[in-house]
């Protein structure tokens, strides 16, 4: 019964670094496995523990898609000891990774449906993974319309901006980028995510919707989705909790009898309601 030791990080190397936000507190790192035999496969929505020996570990959603080969992408908000350490890494530096952890967006169940992605702030990371996965030539025909709504406080806080702006010109995805308040030079949408969702989301017929972002955004988006006719089973979100082990042992990320690290992070609104979860 003894499987491999899930607490031991796999060595990875920083392949590329991108500064995401104007305030430089959000930074994206692409990682590659030092020993390709240790590379793992994953699904959109899963997360990993990034590990710096001597500093500790912290959980991050995987922002790359399994269809993108050769790197794993994470976006890190500089906020504490581990994330500051991650910000100090240079290209070529080594660190550890544990994963893939948790469940994922049920992409098999989404087949033949329209998929709506609603993201706010840097909670958009795993939605990028999902969007790239759905749009991959090998999968795109399996899904209906893809609508993406992404809101940030201001243009400088918008992550993956260059890539998302390219997607605005693509035929197979309806991109809607929005900022909270008007800013000179911004000629796209302005307004909070719930309002923009109301305006651009397609009908709820044969559609599923992912809502990821700050709890306050989710709280105000849910009534809009109810209005649009989305059932509680067709709404999904990805939750964040403080975690240590990531494998359902350390006891801190539970909501009722479920652990966000193994039973989540992806939950349907129906499941969360059963757990008495409040945004």
């Amino acid at each position, binding site marked *: *019964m*003894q*499987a491999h*030791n*899930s*607490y*031991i*990080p796999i060595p990875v190397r920083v392949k590329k670094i991108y500064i995401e936000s104007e305030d430089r507190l959000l930074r994206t790192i692409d990682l590659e496995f030092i020993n390709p035999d240790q590379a793992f496969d994953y699904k959109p929505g899963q997360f990993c523990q990034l590990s*710096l*020996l*001597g*500093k*500790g*570990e*912290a959980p991050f959603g995987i922002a790359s898609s399994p269809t993108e080969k050769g790197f794993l992408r994470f976006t890190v*908000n500089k*906020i*504490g000891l581990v*994330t500051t350490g991650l910000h100090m890494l240079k290209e070529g530096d080594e660190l*550890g990774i544990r994963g893939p952890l948790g469940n994922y967006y049920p992409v098999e169940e989404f087949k033949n449906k329209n998929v709506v992605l609603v993201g706010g702030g840097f909670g958009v990371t795993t939605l990028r993974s999902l969007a790239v996965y759905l749009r991959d030539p090998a999968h795109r025909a399996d899904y209906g319309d893809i609508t993406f709504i992404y809101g940030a406080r201001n243009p400088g806080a918008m992550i993956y901006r260059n890539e998302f702006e390219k997607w605005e010109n693509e035929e197979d995805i309806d991109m809607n980028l929005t900022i909270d308040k008007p800013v000179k030079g911004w000629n796209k949408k302005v307004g909070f995510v719930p309002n923009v969702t109301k305006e651009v989301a397609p009908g709820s017929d044969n559609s599923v919707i992912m809502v990821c972002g700050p*709890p306050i955004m989710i709280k105000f988006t849910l009534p809009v989705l109810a209005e649009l006719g989305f059932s509680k089973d067709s709404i999904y979100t990805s939750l*964040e*909790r*403080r975690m*240590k*082990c990531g*494998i*359902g*042992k*350390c*006891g*801190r*990320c*539970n909501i*009722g*009898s479920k652990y966000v690290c*193994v039973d989540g992070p992806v939950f349907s609104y129906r499941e969360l309601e059963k757990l*008495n979860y409040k945004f």
Partner: protein
Amino acid sequence: MSKYKLKKNNIENFLNELREEYSVFAPIESDGTVAFQKLDDVKLPDISLKRTDRPPKEIFFPHTEVILSFDDKNAESGEYRGKPIAVFGLKSCDSKSLHILDNVFLDSSYTDTYWYKRRSNSLIFTIGCNNPLPSCFCNWFKCGPFDSTHSDVAVTDIEDSFILEPVSEQGTEYLAKSKYLEKAEEKDIKKAEALKEKAESDMPQPPDLKKLKEILDNNQNDKLWEELAAKCLGCGVCAFSCPTCYCFDIQDDSRRNKGKRVRIWDTCQEPLFTKEGSGHNPRPSQKGRTLQRFMHKLSYMIETQNNFGCVGCGRCVTLCPVNIDIRDFIKKVLQVKGDK
């Protein structure tokens, strides 16, 4: 199955013999505190038959455990590499607690290597409680002072001797080869049975807990939680002394380029336990934290492993500085709802 007798003047020999194959732990009293300690010396200290003050989980899940040692070049797992572990003198509630923790650490999705390495091939000698304490309530949770379900050998203290009955295959094999056992006589077995009956009948009748989970699940905002939390200091002694509380933290400790990654017991009673990097805390109040601990034991664990997470050892009842008694709380819950 045949029962054996171990004369008390042979206990030292018996445990020394056990030490040839196993790393042996037994309850030892030192400076007023009874805890499971590893038996190292040839001359053994006196074995205490009291309920230990410290919970037995620490044998398999030490308070502080190195999970990784590292320097510039290498990182090495700190997993246990010693002999299989034998524990002599666990109480029924405590051997059941190991089973509950097995369900956590060895569940089907992930095996916890550190627990597994210490726990595999362990040999558990459970000793019956001749005199259950006033704080004992194992019989509330389908257990009893002489329950030996989760043991390899069941032991009964009959004053001048111990009666040993094998429970598992591993226990049967071990007892069959020990040099210090003799066949138990009929009168010894009778004596042991009488002690068992007496202990069982001495314990007060438990309340009916069939509806407990349902009532708790439907009343998370109830005033009872507020009353309980208002009393609680959040010190965590209940969790640290609990044989089934398993929450832990992982911290790195390093100097220059050398260091250790350790896991340390932690408790859901501590506000920082769930506080996130952003400052957000999903359990900011003592009410939420008290609810978490009690619901975990009395509701969530029924869903995750079909057991109450409490084994009724009574340590939290004895140690709580403000006299919170989980039995009183359960009775209140059952009572208030019963009246409605």
